[in-house]
């Protein structure tokens, strides 16, 4: 049975407009930094998505900025009420993710909106798309910031939809990092490139919101199936013009081509998800464009990475945490939940656990850092089952009062890191090295009960009948809520 969802970005934009989570911008906006600056300010103010109707130099195109940069928009994208709290969104996501895989449905090209305009050969010129100069100082116009790249394994049917940033180089060329531990990185660097075979790709710009969410998720399933599970029915896909890849039929813009083996060209710097321009100009993976297909009057999507909170930070934090929740439960660890603070740019994972035995926090750290997700974060805070992992105040309080400054911190100096970590030394960036740290905020289970400090809070140090009396008479005392 299908859940409530939005089949394309246009329906999603209408939903955002109805709830006040998007604003129509009729004023002409320059793609050269002005559009990016607006989106950046919206992210930092956690504001409504700007829906740009008039882009300088590009009549006929529109753009949506900051499509899912806060939890309200994520709830709307999931078909939930905007006020749904994070645990509620997580529960619904997990419920859908636990269903049986659903295969996508292939539809005819004549029925696919993304084929309304088909540009081949010299007409497939990506400089005719309104790629924004997102930040001053960026190494180029980042045509792809809210999108995903479709690629297929060379030897198996495995298909990957993943967000890999792409910078416009010239009218036929894009470039971006494809890290070796990513799904597409394993396909390209381990299989296509060694055999000198160009890898077909299709970049999907402005997909429907659930496909975008799926492409950010660390699922082991092909994301076309995972998207269908989030929808509760098959996502409609259509065959590409120049390869055997399939793309969501209701997306706004598709760029097709090949990833070029054994040639690298300069990319970056770029304002990245960590909130810094960290990685320098370097030679990175090359995409050569063969075709563009799109809807009439297409709508770009623009995410603006920077200081929190943007889409990548929010969605990666959300889905990485839920994947680790699943992983720890599969290992039989008595956790109460896992949360990643989006403000940590998915570098900090908070785990709630029943402190059943000594050094359970260290074990949790070893499991999460040892997983395939481990390279993306380097801090793990383990709190007890009475601490609300979604409440920053409670987590900070636990960290600063229960974590012993020498005995409670476990450092692993040699872990897998990413070149995007702002703190990393140059050689750590070059070779993808990084340290890991666990903050154990659990009182040791061997301490006798009489020795354990008592948390002094309204919920914890008053008898139930006093709490209920105070709450029931709160207004009578003269207080607002």
């Amino acid at each position, binding site marked *: 049975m299908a859940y409530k969802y939005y089949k394309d970005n246009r329906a999603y934009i209408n939903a955002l407009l109805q709830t006040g989570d998007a604003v129509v911008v009729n004023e002409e906006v320059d793609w*050269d930094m002005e559009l990016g600056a607006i989106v950046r300010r919206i992210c930092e103010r956690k504001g409504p998505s700007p829906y740009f109707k008039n882009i300088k*130099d*590009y009549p006929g195109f529109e753009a949506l900025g900051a499509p899912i940069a806060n939890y309200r928009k994520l709830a709307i994208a999931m078909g939930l009420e905007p006020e749904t709290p994070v645990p509620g969104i997580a529960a619904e996501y997990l419920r859908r993710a636990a269903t049986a895989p659903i295969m996508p449905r292939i539809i005819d090209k004549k029925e696919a909106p993304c084929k309304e305009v088909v540009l081949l050969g010299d007409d497939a010129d990506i*400089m*005719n798309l309104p790629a924004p*100069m997102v*930040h*001053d*100082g*960026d*190494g*180029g*116009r980042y045509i792809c910031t809210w999108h995903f790249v479709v690629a297929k394994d060379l030897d198996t049917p495995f298909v990957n939809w993943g967000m890999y940033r792409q910078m*416009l*180089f*010239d*009218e036929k*060329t894009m470039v971006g990092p494809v890290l070796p531990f990513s799904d597409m990185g394993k396909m390209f660097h381990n299989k296509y490139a060694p055999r000198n075979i*160009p890898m077909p790709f299709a970049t999907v710009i402005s997909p429907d919101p659930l496909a975008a969410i799926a492409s950010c998720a660390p699922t082991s399933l092909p994301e076309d199936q995972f998207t269908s599970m989030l929808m509760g029915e098959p996502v409609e896909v259509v065959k590409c013009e120049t390869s055997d890849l399939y793309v969501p039929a209701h997306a706004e813009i598709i760029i097709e081509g*090949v990833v*070029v083996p054994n*040639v690298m*060209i*300069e990319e970056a*710097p770029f304002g990245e998800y960590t909130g810094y*321009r*960290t990685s*320098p*100009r370097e030679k990175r993976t*090359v995409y*050569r464009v063969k075709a563009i297909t799109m809807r009439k009057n297409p709508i770009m999507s623009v995410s603006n990475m920077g200081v929190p909170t943007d889409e990548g930070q929010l969605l990666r934090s959300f889905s990485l945490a839920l994947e680790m929740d699943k992983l720890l439960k599969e290992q039989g660890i008595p956790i109460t939940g896992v949360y990643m603070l989006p403000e940590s740019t998915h570098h900090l994972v908070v785990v709630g656990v029943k402190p059943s035995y000594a050094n359970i926090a260290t074990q949790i750290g070893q499991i999460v850092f040892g997983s395939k997700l481990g390279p993306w974060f380097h801090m793990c805070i383990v709190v007890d089952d009475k601490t609300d992992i979604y409440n920053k105040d409670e987590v900070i309080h636990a960290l600063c009062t229960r974590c012993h400054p020498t005995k409670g911190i476990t450092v692993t100096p040699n872990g897998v890191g990413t070149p995007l970590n702002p703190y990393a030394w140059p050689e750590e960036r070059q070779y993808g090295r990084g340290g890991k740290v666990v903050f154990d905020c659990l009182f040791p289970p061997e301490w006798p009960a009489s020795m354990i400090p008592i948390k002094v809070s309204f919920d914890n140090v008053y008898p139930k009948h006093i709490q209920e009396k105070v709450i029931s008479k709160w207004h009578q005392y003269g207080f607002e809520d």
Partner: protein
Amino acid sequence: MAEYDTYINTDFADLKEDVELTGVIRDLAPGRRKYRSTYARFMVSKTADKYKDKLQVRLGRGQLVDTPCSIEVIETFNVIPKGL
């Protein structure tokens, strides 16, 4: 007069003048082609009017260097294999 920029991963002081260099330059002419990149062989000067075209220099993390420079583009070329 055309205007370009280029990125260097070294200190500005290390940028060599009046010798042939190879690298990526971006065209800063306004319009849809702005920021189009190309590989080129060129010579640069830290004197604004030494060569006919303007050049802005940025460092590896995008920091714009204040000194206005000039550039002589000798040749542009493509590094992508033919047929792709």
